[in-house]
C-alpha cells in the first residue's frame, strides 16, 4: 500500500522548485520582460524533468541528481540576473547538458565491452587536443578554443571526460605506465595551450587515480615532486604565472591594475555580508569575468556568506555521494571511474573557489555547473552522467542480488 506522505527527497525537490520559481518571478517582476517570465516557467520545468523523470527511467541516485540540478539552475539564475543573454544561453546549455547526462548514463549502462571504445576515445582525445593548437583562437592568454560553424568550444573540457574514462580503464587493467603516458601527452598539449588551471586538474586527477589503483607512495611522491618541479618551471617560464602569484600574495599593491579582479571579488564578498544584498540588489558588476571565474563572488554578494557556505557544502555532499558510489561498485573499472569523476568536480571547485577567496593563486577554471560556458557545463554533466551510470549499475546489482536471494529462499 502506498503512503500518501511525501518522502524527504520529494520535499527537497519541491522546495528547490519553489525557490527557483520565486527567484525568477522576482527578476521578472522587476524588469517585466517576456523572456523573464519564460525563464520563470522554463527553469523549474527543466529542473523537474531532470530530477523527477530521469529516476523513472532507471535507478538513478536521486539525491545526487537533485544537488547537481540545483547547482545548474542556480547558475542559470545568477547568470540571468547578471546578464540575461548569458542566462538564456546557459538555460539552453543546461537543457543540452541534461540530455548529455542521459546519454552518458545510457552509455555507461549499456556498454559491456569497453576495450575498443576506449581506444577510440584515446585517439579522439589527442586529435581534439591538437585542434586548438592548429586552428585555435586565443582568449585571455590561453589558446584553448576552436570555432566550428560559429559555435566556439573548448576541446580540453570534453577531453577531461575522455581522460577520465581512458585512464580509469587502463588502470583497472593495471596498465599504469600507458595511463601515465596518455595523461602526460594530454597534459603537454594543454600546457602548450597555456590553460594551466585545467592542466592542474588533469594532473591531480590522474595522480589520484594512479594512487588509488596502486597505493604506491612512490608514484604519489614522484607526482608531488613532478608537480613542484613543473610549478617552478612554470613560475620561471611564464610571466603571467609570476604575476598571478604576486597578486595572490598581495593583491592590494596594485588594486587598480593587476590585482583589480581579486580585490573587487573580495570587496563584493564583504559587501554582501552575512545574508547578502538580496537577489538583483547586488553590485558585482565591478568584477571582470564575473560570470565565469568569479561567479562564486556574485553568489556571496547577493545571497550572503551563509548561502555561500551552503553552496560549498552542496559540493561537499555531492563529492561524498560520488565517493559512496565508488565504494559500492563491485568492478574495479567502475570504482576508479566514479572516484575520478567525484574528485574531478571536487578539485575544480576547490581550485576556483580557493582562487576567488584568495586562499590559493587564481587559475582560470570554471565553477562546475554554475559558471557560464557551454563546454564546461557539458563536460560536468557528462561526468555526472558517468557517475549516475555507475550508481544505476550498482542499484541493478543490488536488485539482482535480492532477486537471487528471494529465489533461493523459495527453493529452501
Amino acid at each position: 500500500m502506498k503512503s500518501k506522505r511525501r518522502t524527504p527527497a520529494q520535499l527537497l525537490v519541491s522546495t528547490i522548485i519553489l525557490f527557483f520559481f520565486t527567484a525568477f518571478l522576482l527578476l521578472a517582476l522587476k524588469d517585466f520582460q517576456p523572456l523573464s517570465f519564460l525563464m520563470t516557467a522554463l527553469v523549474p520545468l527543466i529542473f523537474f524533468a531532470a530530477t523527477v523523470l530521469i529516476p523513472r527511467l532507471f535507478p538513478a541516485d536521486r539525491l545526487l541528481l537533485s544537488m547537481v540540478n540545483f547547482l545548474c539552475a542556480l547558475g542559470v539564475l545568477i547568470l540571468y540576473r547578471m546578464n540575461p543573454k548569458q542566462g538564456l544561453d546557459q538555460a539552453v546549455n543546461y537543457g543540452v547538458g541534461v540530455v548529455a547526462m542521459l546519454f552518458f548514463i545510457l552509455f555507461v549502462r549499456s556498454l559491456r565491452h569497453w576495450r575498443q571504445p576506449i581506444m577510440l576515445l584515446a585517439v579522439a582525445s589527442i586529435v581534439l587536443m591538437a585542434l586548438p593548437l592548429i586552428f585555435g583562437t586565443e582568449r585571455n592568454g590561453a589558446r584553448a578554443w576552436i570555432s566550428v560553424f560559429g559555435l566556439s568550444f573548448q576541446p580540453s573540457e570534453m577531453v577531461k571526460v575522455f581522460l577520465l574514462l581512458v585512464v580509469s580503464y587502463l588502470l583497472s587493467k593495471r596498465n599504469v605506465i600507458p595511463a601515465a603516458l596518455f595523461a602526460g601527452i594530454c597534459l603537454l598539449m594543454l600546457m602548450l595551450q597555456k590553460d594551466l588551471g585545467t592542466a592542474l586538474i588533469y594532473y591531480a586527477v590522474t595522480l589520484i587515480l594512479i594512487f588509488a589503483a596502486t597505493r604506491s607512495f612512490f608514484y604519489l611522491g614522484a607526482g608531488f615532486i613532478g608537480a613542484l618541479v613543473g610549478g617552478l618551471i612554470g613560475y620561471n617560464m611564464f610571466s603571467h604565472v609570476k604575476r598571478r602569484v604576486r597578486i595572490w600574495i598581495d593583491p592590494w599593491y596594485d588594486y587598480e591594475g593587476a590585482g583589480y579582479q581579486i580585490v573587487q571579488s573580495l570587496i563584493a564578498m564583504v559587501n554582501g555580508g552575512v545574508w547578502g544584498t538580496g537577489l538583483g540588489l547586488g553590485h558585482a558588476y565591478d568584477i571582470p569575468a564575473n560570470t565565469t571565474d568569479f561567479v562564486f563572488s556574485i553568489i556571496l554578494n547577493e545571497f550572503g556568506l551563509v548561502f555561500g557556505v551552503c553552496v560549498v557544502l552542496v559540493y561537499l555532499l555531492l563529492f561524498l555521494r560520488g565517493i559512496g558510489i565508488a565504494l559500492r561498485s563491485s568492478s574495479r573499472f567502475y570504482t576508479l571511474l566514479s572516484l575520478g569523476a567525484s574528485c574531478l568536480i571536487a578539485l575544480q571547485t576547490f581550485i576556483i573557489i580557493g582562487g576567488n577567496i584568495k586562499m590559493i593563486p587564481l587559475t582560470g577554471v570554471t565553477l562546475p555547473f554554475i559558471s557560464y560556458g557551454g563546454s564546461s557545463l557539458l563536460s560536468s554533466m557528462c561526468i555526472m552522467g558517468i557517475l549516475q551510470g555507475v550508481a544505476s549499475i550498482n542499484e541493478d546489482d543490488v536488485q539482482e542480488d535480492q532477486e537471487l536471494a528471494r529465489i533461493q529462499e523459495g527453493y529452501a
Partner: protein
Amino acid sequence: MKLIRQNIRLIATVLCVLLISLVVYGAYSISTQGSRWFSSGANKYLRRTKANVTAGNIVDRANVLLATTDNTGKRVYSSDEAVRRAMVHVVGDSANNIAYGAESFMADHLYAFNESYLERLAQGLQGKIRRGYDIRLSVDSRLSKKAYSLFPKDKSGAIVVMNYRTGELLALQSYPSFDPMNLTQLDKDNPLKPFWNRATKWISAPGSAFKVITLAGALQHIPDAINKTFHCSGELVLENTTITDANNAVHNDLNLKKALALSCNIAFSQAILEMGDKNLQQTASNFGFGDYFLFSDLVVENSVYPTTDRTEKEIAWTGPGQSRLQVTPLHMCMVAAAIANDGIMMEPKLLLGVTNNAGVSRFDFFAREHRIALDKPTADTIADYMREVVRTGTGTRAGVSGIPVCGKTGSAQIDGQRETNAWFVGFIDDPKYPFAVCVVVEDAGGGGSVAAPIAGELFKFMTGR
C-alpha cells in the same frame, strides 16, 4: 578491491578537508580583514552608496562634534581649525586623502550598512533620506589640540596617547597635518606627506627607546641581571664596528638601572651579546614584534625585529635600538603601556560607541588584551628603572613635580638625515592617570631635549597641573 576502497577513503578524507578548509579560510579572512576590504578606496559600491546616505556624526569622548553633514549634504568638520588639524588623521576626510581614518574605516557605521531592512523601510516610508549612525571616538579633542600646539611647526612626527588599562586612544596624531576643510596645493606638494598617518603607518628604528625591551630581555635571560655590573670605557670594539655613546660619554662601571637612566649604548650592546640575539628576539616578539596587527579599529603597519643577516655588528646595534629594527609610534606607545599595565598589552581602541537615529546604542565598547608581554615583577622593575630615567637620567624634562612619570628617551640615527629622530615613550605610574605616551619628532635632535619636553607638557595637561 578492498585495497582500492581503503585508498579511496584516504583520498576522500583529504579532499573533504580541502573543501572544508575553503569555509574555514573564508570565514577567518573575512572576520579578520573584511572591514579593511570593505572600507578600502577600491570599494566602488561604498562610494556609490555614500551618495545616497547621509553620514552620521563623529564626536570625541566628551561628545565634542568632530564631523557632521550640513543641510546641503556637505561633510563639515570641527569649527576650530586647530582641532581639525590636530585630529584629521583619526577622523579622516571626505576626500579620502587619509587612508584609514574613521570616515572611511568606520563607514559601515557612519553609513549604517548593517541596518536592518525593517529600519530602512521605516525611514523610507517617512520620506526621509536615510541617515547613518553617529559614532563616538575615544580621542580627546582638548588633549589633541594641546598636543598640536606643542609639536614643533614644520617638523614631521607623531604623538600617541593611550589609556594603558583599557587601550583607549586619547590622541593619535601625525605631523605635518592639514586642514580637511581647506586643502591647499601646498599640502598636496609637501614632501613630508601630510596625508600619511605616521603614528600607524610609519616604521622606523626607535633608537634608545627600544632599550626598555632590551632591558626586559636582560632581566628575563641574564641570571641576576639586577645586580650585574657592566663596564663602559667609552667604546666597545667589535668586528667591523665600534659601539660608542652619544657625545662619546664614558660611564665606567654601571648596573642596568643606571645604564637605562644614562642611556648607555655600550651596556645594552653587552647585554644583547650576553643574552644572545634569539633571546632578545623572543622578548621582542612577546612585545608584538612580528605580529600581524589586525585591530578592530585601526590599520597598523607591522613591526619588524630583523632576523636575516645577523652579523655581530647588527646584533650589537640592536640592543640600543638601532640596526634594522622597525616600529610604529603607536606600537612603541603600546610597549610603554604594557610595562605600565603589569605586562599586559591592550589592543588600541578608537571606537567607544555607536548610536542609531533613534538614539539606541548599536555597539558597546570592550577592552581587549592584545598579548601578555611580560610578567608583573619584571614589568614593575622596568617601570622603576624608567622612573629613574625621568628623575635623574636623560628624560628629566618629561618630569612633572608630584607625578610619578616613567619614561625612556631615544635619539635614532637614520642614514641620510642631518639630525637624529627624537623619541620619548613613557607613562604615569598612577592608577588615577593611566596614560601612556609616545612622542616622535623626525630629524630634530635628541629625545631628551626635543621629545621629552613635549611629553612633559602633555603629562602636565592630563593631570591638570
